[in-house]
């Protein structure tokens, strides 16, 4: 086990100590670097899908970053909030407290928030209101279908003989009818899934504002998003008024699934994110951290 793992500790924080987390200190001094905050993937507890967040925390600690993984209110071991307000308000307050706790534990003055799916969306939403967030690792965040998406979607069906066969033998129609019949029959969503995402113009303004503030992004999409994301640069095309340039590291991993079930895909993702963190927030010769300007935007192959 690494030194960081041996020094992991459980923490209770926030109002009335209602929020629960596990803090993983860096294996080596991390002064000046941001602390990494891992935000729940959907309603899965802080361990993460397939134990991914535990692996991520320890990997980033080996790379020299302090990490806090925690449970939002009502998820995992954190108590549900009794305060009124939308779920978005609750999550925002939770993140505010988590950022404060992560900085307090680490001695850092800024954080990099990382999350999958809903965890990515809530991290992005909170970053717009919290100047302590200087980096975002967003895995499968919400993004809009673009014209390019629809062209590719249509082409994949028009050019695929199997699609025509399904259309002509009635299979496609049966699938559509089954989906419509099943819609709404599965019961209510978990409360956290009622989190409201912004409309495209608002999201675009939020991204632009974050870029102007100097926030850095590592954004990746897996094969789990193929129903709404199907080409590498769709994220950039979705926000044409945002000049991400050097602020963005974008990936498209169609072979990986939404929760990085395959060990090789998960390992590659952690290595890639870890390398990005180390490059963006290197330690200087005296051990103090500094932010790197980084390479210009690299479009994925």
């Amino acid at each position: 086990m690494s030194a960081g793992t041996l020094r992991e500790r459980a923490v209770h924080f926030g109002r009335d100590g209602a929020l629960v987390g596990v803090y993983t200190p860096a294996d080596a001094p991390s002064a000046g670097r941001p602390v990494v905050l891992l935000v729940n993937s959907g309603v899965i507890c802080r361990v993460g899908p397939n134990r991914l967040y535990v692996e991520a925390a320890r990997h980033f600690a080996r790379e020299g970053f302090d990490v806090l993984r925690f449970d939002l209110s009502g998820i995992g071991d954190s108590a549900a909030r009794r305060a009124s307000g939308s779920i978005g308000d609750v999550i925002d307050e939770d993140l505010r407290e988590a950022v404060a706790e992560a900085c307090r534990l680490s001695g850092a003055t800024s954080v990099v928030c990382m999350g999958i799916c809903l965890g990515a969306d809530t991290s992005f939403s909170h970053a717009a209101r919290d100047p302590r967030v200087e980096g975002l690792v967003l895995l499968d965040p919400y993004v809009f279908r673009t014209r390019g998406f629809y062209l590719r979607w249509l082409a994949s069906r028009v050019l695929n003989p199997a699609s025509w066969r399904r259309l002509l033998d009635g299979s496609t129609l049966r699938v559509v009818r089954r989906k419509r019949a099943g819609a709404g029959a599965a019961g209510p969503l978990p409360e956290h899934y009622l989190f409201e995402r912004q409309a495209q113009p608002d999201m675009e303004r939020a991204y632009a504002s974050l870029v102007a503030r100097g926030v850095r992004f590592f954004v990746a999409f897996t094969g789990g998003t193929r129903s709404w994301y199907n080409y590498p640069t769709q994220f950039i095309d979705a926000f044409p008024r945002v000049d991400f340039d050097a602020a963005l590291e974008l990936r498209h991993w169609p072979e990986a699934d939404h929760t990085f079930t395959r060990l090789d895909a998960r390992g590659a993702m952690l290595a890639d994110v870890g390398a990005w963190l180390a490059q963006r927030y290197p330690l200087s010769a005296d051990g103090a951290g500094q932010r790197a300007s980084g390479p210009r935007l690299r479009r994925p192959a």
Partner: protein
Amino acid sequence: MKCFFFGPSRRPLFGVYDAPGRVSRRGVVLCPAWGNEHLRAHKAMRRLAVLLADAGFHVLRFDYFGTGDSGGDTLDARPSEFVADARTAIEELRDVGGVTRVSLVGLRLGAMVAARAAAGRRDVDRVVLWDPVLDPAEHLEELLTGYGRHAAPEPDADGVLEASGFALSPAFREEFPALWDADAATVAPPTRVVVARDDARARGLVAALQARGTDAGFACIPGAPVWQEERQFGTGPVPAQLLGYVVTELAA
């Protein structure tokens, strides 16, 4: 509720302790399932802990080494050492809660861990085996194929298998069958087997326990298993009636 790490420094275990609302000398240790079953059942296990604490028990939930928040990589997880972890948890609960009697509740693979951990201990007064794994080979197949959703993977060059997102070491696969064998039917304390889906093998286990003179009982409380995913959110259900049964049996 208090979260903390305990156990030897080379083998840190993550635990969650719930204190009772009144003075009590009785405690319960919850032995979890493994892999995605463990993660999906988290809500249900947490709810059970709260109900038990409300009923007057000191309660300790914990993660085996190499699982959950505990130390160790997933490849470090060894079934033979899960039993030792459970015994460490018993000792910890006795120390933290000042309890003199401990009951064990084991879910799925955890049921076999609980049965083994109880062996030879005079301080374990009751055992609940919840949806116990009774066929190790069948359970490994379930884990490797995602309950039949895909073909079983081939081992890599180091003999490691991928069990739906979790790495299964060769040692894990070799040790696992030994976790459940005929000796498990020698659980001495009063034992209750509770299942969400009726299972003749579970009834057979109870019969075997009774034949050896153990006070054993069986209950089937139908419902979706807590260790299966509810819809596609990565979590399982919280079966109020089944949890109520467990609390009632332990409080009796």
